[in-house]
């Protein structure tokens, strides 16, 4: 297997793709949103339980490729317990990294979490896969905005 593909499919991605964490519905969710990538048919639903501006719990369901599943899984791991402002800072830095932009340096207290998302940034050399890595994050953003009514986002 060539080295560069190994950068895309690092062990942690394969592991989270096969055994996603926080992969279930959340009955006590205060917010949720569906994400859909019409190009490949990937679907994800992100559930949030907000307490004030803190993410008390977060989970997801859906079907998708290894990249999108692993990204959703890792996202739920780093977001649990964060404030919405911290979550937004993490998404900004992650989004910039996967799209090949100049990421704003994350605040020092979030450096470890940004580091956890690092394996996913291999997608930046595969433009067709960037949306796989960001789908769950867009659904998360939509869930924050939509509240208990739910919302749908498409990667376009």
């Amino acid at each position, binding site marked *: *297997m*060539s080295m*560069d*593909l190994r950068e*895309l*499919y690092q062990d942690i991605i*394969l592991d989270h*793709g*096969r055994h996603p964490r926080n992969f279930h519905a959340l009955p006590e969710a205060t917010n949720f949103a569906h994400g859909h990538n019409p*190009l*490949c*048919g*990937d679907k994800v639903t992100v559930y949030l339980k907000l307490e004030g501006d803190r993410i008390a719990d977060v989970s997801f369901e859906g*079907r*998708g*490729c*290894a*990249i999108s*599943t692993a990204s959703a899984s890792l996202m739920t791991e780093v977001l649990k317990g964060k404030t919405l402002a911290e979550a937004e800072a993490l998404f900004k830095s992650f989004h910039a990294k996967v799209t090949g932009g100049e990421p704003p340096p994350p605040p020092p207290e979030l450096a470890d979490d940004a580091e956890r998302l690092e394996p996913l940034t291999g997608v930046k050399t*595969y433009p067709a*896969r960037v949306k*796989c890595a960001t789908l769950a994050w867009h659904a998360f953003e939509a869930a924050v905005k939509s509240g208990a009514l739910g919302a749908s986002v498409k990667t376009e």
Partner: protein
Amino acid sequence: MSAVSPLRSVASASFDVRRVRRDFPIFERNPGLVFLDTAASAQKPKAVIDGVAEYYRTDYANVHRGVYRLSSASTDRFEKARESARRFINAAHADEIVFVRGTTEAINLVAYSWGGKFLGPDDEVILSELEHHSNIVPWQLLRDRIGFKILAVPIDATGGLDLAAFERLLSPRTKMAALTHISNVNGHIVPVETIIRLAHARGAKVLLDGAQAAPRLPVDVQALDVDFYAFSGHKAYGPSGIGVLYGKKDLLAEMPPWQGGGSMISTVSFERTTYLEPPHRFEAGTPDISGAIGLGYALDYIDGLGRETIREHEDALTGYALRRLSALPGVRVVGGGQRQLGVVSFTLEGIHPHDVGQILDQNNVAVRAGHHCAQPLMDRLRVAGTTRASFGVYNDETDVDALVRAIKAAQEMFGA
């Protein structure tokens, strides 16, 4: 012509793939390329690439307008391409050939013009679960305006069209059966001869989506007695942006224009406009002149190889691919009915098609992964998507072997 022909040798004496491959410059520029996505779009032979360039260099001008020499030379070449398309499907008259952008536009044209005039709220249009979105959505758009009913023929357990179900769906309300000739997902060859006979017996018209079939097997619209036949240039080794709608002369003559503009009118005043006869009635505006000319070269090229020969070659190759893939652990081949040609879909246990496509690409194997613009079929098969290998005149069994090696690499990486 069944693909399930395990004893047939893949090598065909009359068909030298290595020589054919030299006609396609893409393989020179991309050494080692294993191109298995012809169902999405075919690569182009020199005859098309050079023919279009030569036309631009020597004879280019607008068609059907100028009185000067270049314009009439250009018109001659454009109309010669129409003749090539006529010959390609053995239409009775060249004016039964309407140049369109592709299969999608051809079906939209028939739905809008024929359907808009002849369909009413109590009528029924029969489609099938095998259809590409391009043979579903145009009918839905029209249904939302007019209010007729759309029925879908299911597939049977083998993945083929359920002919008995088709017969049951037919009724005096059936006005149109619009079906694919070969599925772009599982390669199933629909028994169109029987379909047409049954539909005509009920007074219904038949439109065939020939996007996959036209480049793969001989098509004779007169022998079929089909009412409308659509195919795309780019899947037939020609340029993209050009395609053909065949319509029986008396049907086209009854149909109103669907787009207005230059080239399609006889006289225009602010009070009243009269239209040209088909095919020009349906070709408003300056057409894709070089596209049509390139398509003519492509169709002549295919006919030069011989479509019966191409069918035999792709049939043998499809059979070989089915045998190799079925023998691989963890691979589930999507059934293509009793007769299957040129297209093979499969899923890999534990690996999403998108990931399969990515890893195959890394191994220089180009396949399509996803829903193939056939979401109703994906739902029916209960899969999110498939990986699809499809063949062209430049493929041989070494391409299938490369595919199998790449699948094993994917399985190794994913530990599946």
